[in-house]
């Protein structure tokens, strides 16, 4: 699907922009976030990155021309039309690319396997089309020929070359592993083997009831099944560790009381979650490794901060995502959180709104839990659990004082984030919340 490139709004009072230079030409391949054009307003020249990966197919506004913000200035066409249209509905955010290596690849398996199994589709989504595309584009003709001859999808292969490029060795290894040697990092789990032998791989492989016992058997809902798969996959993928911090919410509580009326007038409720989101965003800025993914031998640092907020539903759990959370202030975050939570509950989320999260916040405290030990939402590397926020006795200057307190827990992937970093990240979140700057 072509992506329109818009004249960005670089500030509240800015209504138009002048294109001073196109860095890319029509027909050039562009990567998401790569500088695409330069605009100028007033005394400011700004370099604008591409909103998507693909090929620049059309330039609608020439150098020197001035157009209103949000006008379409160009179009980026997809490099290829791979799997953009799978149904997503309530699927928890994407599974790690490594999931593919868990899918059995026996040579005599039915040839139609990929597109047909939902799990496969999911894995494909996970691999983030932009990287897939670039991998595909950047591989050498030789690699592409090997791929064609062996009927292999290059986007499914982990590239060890420059910028994720798939090298000849990568593809030969991949073909080797496909035919049975399977040594990639997906660590063969019992569940995966079971999937090959026809049992549903729900992660619930053990026998739960003997025949004839007094039980009622009901099939899992699609959402339940996906959650089950995702949770087991996450446990299997990441080396989970947790850090628990006790955070004083007195300052936040004071600001909340002060601003309550103001926010109500603006039509939204000022919740603790907005403060926590704000603090998390600022800590993620300082610790980019926590806003990353692990892909084989590469760390993928996410330039955007897309905050997933876990929302409990009657039938399960969904994690809608606030895109570009770092560009929102407290009011913007309050609105966004209220909006996605409401629409999650009324099932009005758009498919893309549960995608591309880079960090997740979950709030078991709302049900009274002191703290949770959350499981990472793959392919992210960390998740914040918020315990119940309540008044507790604490020691202040050698006296017992009553303060609004809560435990915050960070669940993180020790493969990528060490305890020191995880704790520093949490110390920053704590610091931000305890000294919250209402401006």
């Amino acid at each position, binding site marked *: 699907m072509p992506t329109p490139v818009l004249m960005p709004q670089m*500030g509240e009072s800015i209504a138009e922009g002048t294109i001073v230079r196109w860095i890319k030409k029509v027909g050039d391949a562009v990567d998401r976030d790569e500088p695409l054009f330069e605009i*100028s307003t007033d*005394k400011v*020249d*700004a*370099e604008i990155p591409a909103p998507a990966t693909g090929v620049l197919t059309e330039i609608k506004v020439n150098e020197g021309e001035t157009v209103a913000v949000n006008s379409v200035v160009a179009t980026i066409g997809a490099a290829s039309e791979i799997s953009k249209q799978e149904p997503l509905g309530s699927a928890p955010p994407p599974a790690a690319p490594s999931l593919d290596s868990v899918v059995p690849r026996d040579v005599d398996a039915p040839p139609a396997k990929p597109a047909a199994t939902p799990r496969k589709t999911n894995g494909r989504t996970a691999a983030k089309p932009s990287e897939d595309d670039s991998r595909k584009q950047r591989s050498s003709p030789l690699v592409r020929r090997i791929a064609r001859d062996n009927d292999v999808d290059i986007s499914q292969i982990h590239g060890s070359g420059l910028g994720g490029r798939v090298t000849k060795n990568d593809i030969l290894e991949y073909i080797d592993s496909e035919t049975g040697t399977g040594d990639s990092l997906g660590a063969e789990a019992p569940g995966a083997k079971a999937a090959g032998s026809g049992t549903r791989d729900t992660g619930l492989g053990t026998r739960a009831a003997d025949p004839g016992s007094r039980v009622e058997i009901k099939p899992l809902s699609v959402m339940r099944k996906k959650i089950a798969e995702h949770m087991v996959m996450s446990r299997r993928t990441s080396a989970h560790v947790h850090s628990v911090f006790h955070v004083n919410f007195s300052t936040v509580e004071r600001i909340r009381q002060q601003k309550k009326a103001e926010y109500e007038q603006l039509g939204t409720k000022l919740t603790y979650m907005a403060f926590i989101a704000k603090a998390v965003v600022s800590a993620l*800025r300082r610790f980019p490794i926590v806003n990353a993914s692990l892909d084989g031998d590469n760390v993928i640092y996410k330039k955007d901060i897309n905050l997933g907020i876990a929302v409990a539903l009657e039938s399960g759990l969904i994690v809608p995502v606030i895109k570009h959370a*770092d560009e929102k202030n407290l009011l913007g975050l309050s609105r966004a959180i209220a909006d996605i939570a409401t629409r999650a509950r009324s099932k009005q989320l758009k498919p893309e709104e549960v995608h591309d999260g880079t960090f997740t916040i979950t709030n078991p405290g709302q049900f009274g839990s002191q703290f949770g030990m959350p499981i990472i939402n793959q392919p992210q590397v960390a998740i914040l659990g918020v315990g119940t926020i309540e008044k507790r006795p604490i020691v202040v200057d050698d006296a017992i004082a009553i303060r609004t307190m809560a435990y915050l827990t960070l669940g993180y992937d020790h493969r990528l984030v060490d305890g020191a970093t995880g704790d520093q990240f949490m110390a920053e979140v704590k610091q931000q919340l305890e000294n919250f700057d209402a401006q």
Partner: protein
Amino acid sequence: MTPGVLSALRQLEVRRMGLIGYQEALELQRELVEERRANRIPDLLLLLQHPPVITLGVRSETARANVVATSERLAELGIEVHETGRGGDVTYHGPGQIVGYPILDLRPDRCDVHKYVRDLEEVMIRTCADYGIAAGRIAGLTGTWVGAEKIGAIGIRISRWITSHGFAFNVRTDLDHFKLIVPCGISDRGVTSLERLTGRTIALDAVEDALVRRFSEVFERRAA
């Protein structure tokens, strides 16, 4: 302010670099922007002076027309002409003018280019106030003005919300050199400096101190 609140402010590293060639500073900024983007360095404020140089903004074709001196005359005075990637038209830099290049990540809460420009103006306005000079803005004419004369110029580049280039504040600049150009393409306004306005000699490093203090204040950063 309690220590806790103080340390909650984002850190600002100040580098005072003295006299540095324009080209060299340009390359340094380019590197620092990348470093800043990768979060390997904190927000930075470079303070420096350039040897005499005329620089042209991105709209170089129109900017060049605003250089009124012939290239022979410029060569005679030892003044270079440089094209740059910043916004704005043409300007002059030289000794006695403090140039500030902030390398900031404007995210998450300062993503507004106009606000950024207004903030830089504010830094210079407040610095003027430190010397008893009432400076202000003129609508539509970016920069810091004292009456109808400009004391501080602004030209900025923003690349995915990382800033470079910045401001130039005249302390004891050779104002005659501005006659070689039409500053910023604005022909009916003059240029001034802190020394001309106050009629006394002013120490450059004291002005740098004031700029750092005012910058930290306006941008809510903790200078280190």
